[in-house]
């Protein structure tokens, strides 16, 4: 890679709709017990930040999507979404 830039991807992984999320239920009940009655539903997932080198944003996107499929999310139960922005170089 001779001409690359540094990017920061934020990946949001959550359980697919319909998949049981006991953690979300526990947090929802916890919040309600604390007096946040207005809370209707909570779902808890993973927030993964990835700093990477890539020549352009398209490449970065392609690579991040591949990482999500392969490792960052389990497509059987989880779905993901990500955003990418330039990162200041180190």
């Amino acid at each position, binding site marked *: 890679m001779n001409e690359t830039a540094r990017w920061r991807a934020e990946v949001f992984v959550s359980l697919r709709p319909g998949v049981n999320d006991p*953690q979300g239920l*526990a947090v929802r009940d*916890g919040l309600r017990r*604390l007096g946040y009655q207005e809370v209707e539903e909570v779902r*808890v997932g993973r927030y993964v930040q990835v700093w990477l080198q890539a020549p352009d944003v398209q490449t970065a996107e392609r690579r991040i999507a591949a990482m999500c499929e392969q490792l960052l999310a389990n497509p059987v139960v989880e779905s993901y979404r990500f955003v990418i922005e330039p990162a200041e170089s180190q």
Partner: protein
Amino acid sequence: MRFGIITFPGSNGDHDALMAVRLGLGQPAELVWHTETDLSNYDCIIIPGGFSYGDYLRAGAIARFAPVMQAVAREAEAGKPILGICNGFQILTEAQLLPGALLRNASLEFVCDWVWVRVEQTHTPWTSQLARGARLRLPIAHGEGRYFVDEKTLGELERAGQIVFRYVDAEGNATPEANPNGSIANIAGVCNGRGNVVGLMPHPERAFDRLIGGDDGLWILASVLAVGLEVVRGRGGN
């Protein structure tokens, strides 16, 4: 001495603590449900291990808001001996009755093993009968036991004598290999400024009988009896 052992939904070390106190120490003990708001009946309090509320979000995060925790805070303030074991330690840090936080083990794995800890402070009611530098062999069983405080707080804890136990090897040295979870400065247990509230990751209540691997845990549980004795003496008993 009457021991109150607090049970949250998801606690699973409550029964072990009960057995250790009853069978190991021969003292009366009772389970206290998390909705209880009065702990004045008990001479000391144990917050046992387990997965309160499934340890969802962060270990201890949800349990610290249980009604009983206000009573715990009151008793802590009043100077009553309180011991948080494993999940109990996590709850006490979340409730800010103890400094620091407990993070996921550096290995990212749950670890169940027997470890050595060294007694660093003897001014707490839970270590009063132990010698400084004494080594105890105790079981650990946790996935989030990596003790963390920032450098500045660490210095303060050192100076104030709030580091109560450290992980050591069989010779008593606090080496990186002896550290089972990546805790800062090999810290296995700490106390509050006053010393009456102690939290530790190892399980003294699981080491009360040689048949199950050891009885070093009784030293910790029994120490508090001596304190109880002094209280009674102070009240004018013999």
